[in-house]
């Protein structure tokens, strides 16, 4: 406890860095997963191979994926964000596809029949109705990425992994905990917040 108390400032900075890694990873993940998820939702023939590919990325140990990424784009935060984004695909693509395909067909038919363009249908009906499920997927991905982002400690990416690994280096368990406890708390808090968001979104959508 004394170590944590004595280094609150540093730990706070590292926590912010960690959140930055996760946020950047999620953002990149969404940019890739949204078109893939929409594609998979529209066309089940394309969907199957897409899901298979994301599954492969998920199953490869993240450290191995990180080593490959480092080889091609060097050390630092860049390969970590890439690995985070790759790992999240499995959760997000499937989630987005499911969210879209489970939207009420009657409402989609009505939207089309009333004269919305495809884009209007998508943004005014499908996405709002799919939002609760989308938030749920985001929640799962966020918690997973908070854990994986600790790998940043291996490659100079910053974040709470730094404390974890420095602590391991000199067998200073308190320092290791100074890295892992905030990470766990971060996961718990964000999970709770996103659950609330999910619940309120569900109430809104009905």
């Amino acid at each position, binding site marked *: 406890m004394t170590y944590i108390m004595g280094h609150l400032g540093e730990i706070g900075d590292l926590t912010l860095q960690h959140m*930055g890694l996760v*946020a*950047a990873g999620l953002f990149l993940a969404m940019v890739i997963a949204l078109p893939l998820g929409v594609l998979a939702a529209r066309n089940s023939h394309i969907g199957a191979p897409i899901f298979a590919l994301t599954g492969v990325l998920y199953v490869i140990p993240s450290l191995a994926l990180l080593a490959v990424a480092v080889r091609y784009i060097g050390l*630092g935060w860049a390969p970590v964000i890439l690995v985070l984004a790759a790992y999240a695909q499995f959760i997000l693509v499937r989630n987005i596809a499911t969210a879209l395909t489970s939207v009420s067909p009657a409402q989609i038919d009505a939207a089309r029949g009333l004269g919305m363009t495809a884009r209007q249908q998508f943004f005014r009906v499908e996405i709002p109705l799919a939002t609760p499920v989308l938030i749920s997927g985001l929640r799962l991905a966020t918690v997973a990425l908070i854990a994986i982002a600790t790998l940043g400690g*291996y490659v100079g990416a*910053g974040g709470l992994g730094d404390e974890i690994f420095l602590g391991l*280096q000199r067998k200073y368990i308190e320092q290791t905990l100074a890295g892992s406890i905030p990470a766990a708390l971060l996961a718990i808090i964000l999970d709770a917040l996103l659950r609330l968001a999910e619940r309120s979104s569900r109430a809104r959508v009905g």
Partner: protein
Amino acid sequence: MTLTRKRSLALIGAALTLPSCGGGDRNVLKAGSKNFGENIIVAEIYAAALERAGLHVERRMNLGSTQIATEAMVRGDIDLYPEYTGTGLIDVLHHTPVRSASEVYAIVKREYARRYGITWLAPSPVNDSQALAVTASLAEKMQLRTLSRCAVLASGLSLAAIPEFVSRADALPGLQRFYGGFHFKSVRTYAIGLQYDALTRGDADVATAFTTDSQIDTDHLVLLSDDKHFWPPYNIAPLVRNTALRAHPQAQAVLNRISPLLTDAAVRRFNEAYNLAHADPAQIAQQFLKEHAH
């Protein structure tokens, strides 16, 4: 639309918190370090000494490996960090090994100034060389005390290495070229510091090491002698960006006064404090400067 807004907030958060690129406030010296205890402590000593001399120092410790630290210097993310002459020579400049400490220093000083606009200030006596270590009992059993002998016996031995060791030109590939042999039965990598655990647990026969690591004494390990002198000297010196030196010329004198104080003994002592007593690098630095105040 909520989803888009949330994403843009995340992006902004990421942009604000991720390490920033490019230059910075010219009134502040940014002191960095690599990702292991000894380097962090020496960097803290440099930083504390500069602060005692009245300069403003911002700390960016534990950046990562040699490659990351060098890139950070070149980009200007940091203005100074402690580096080892041998590492600069072989790992960064990709030069062939040189035996003479003064010659190594001369080469790195010249080339870093020419290529990167970075100055090597005065080198310290401490030689934190790379090494291979074995347990005392294995050394006894196989009469293994030199690198030449290890080169030959390697095919029957397993190696626990830190990740850098496997690829650095002044590490395994270099040993293989210089000594011949050194094709270990198996090589597994561990995070810095953990390779010693593999050795003491019996999961490996040989472990990579640095000559100032405290584990050598505490785990009763034997360092294999570099009988053919493959490894160049690895003297610590402060690396400073020329732009920072121009902005803060007094930094040079301050740091050069520190250099002769870093001896093998001194460094081993604060490594012990860091690893065994779990002392804080910043506190070790303050203690060190207090002891050597003049």
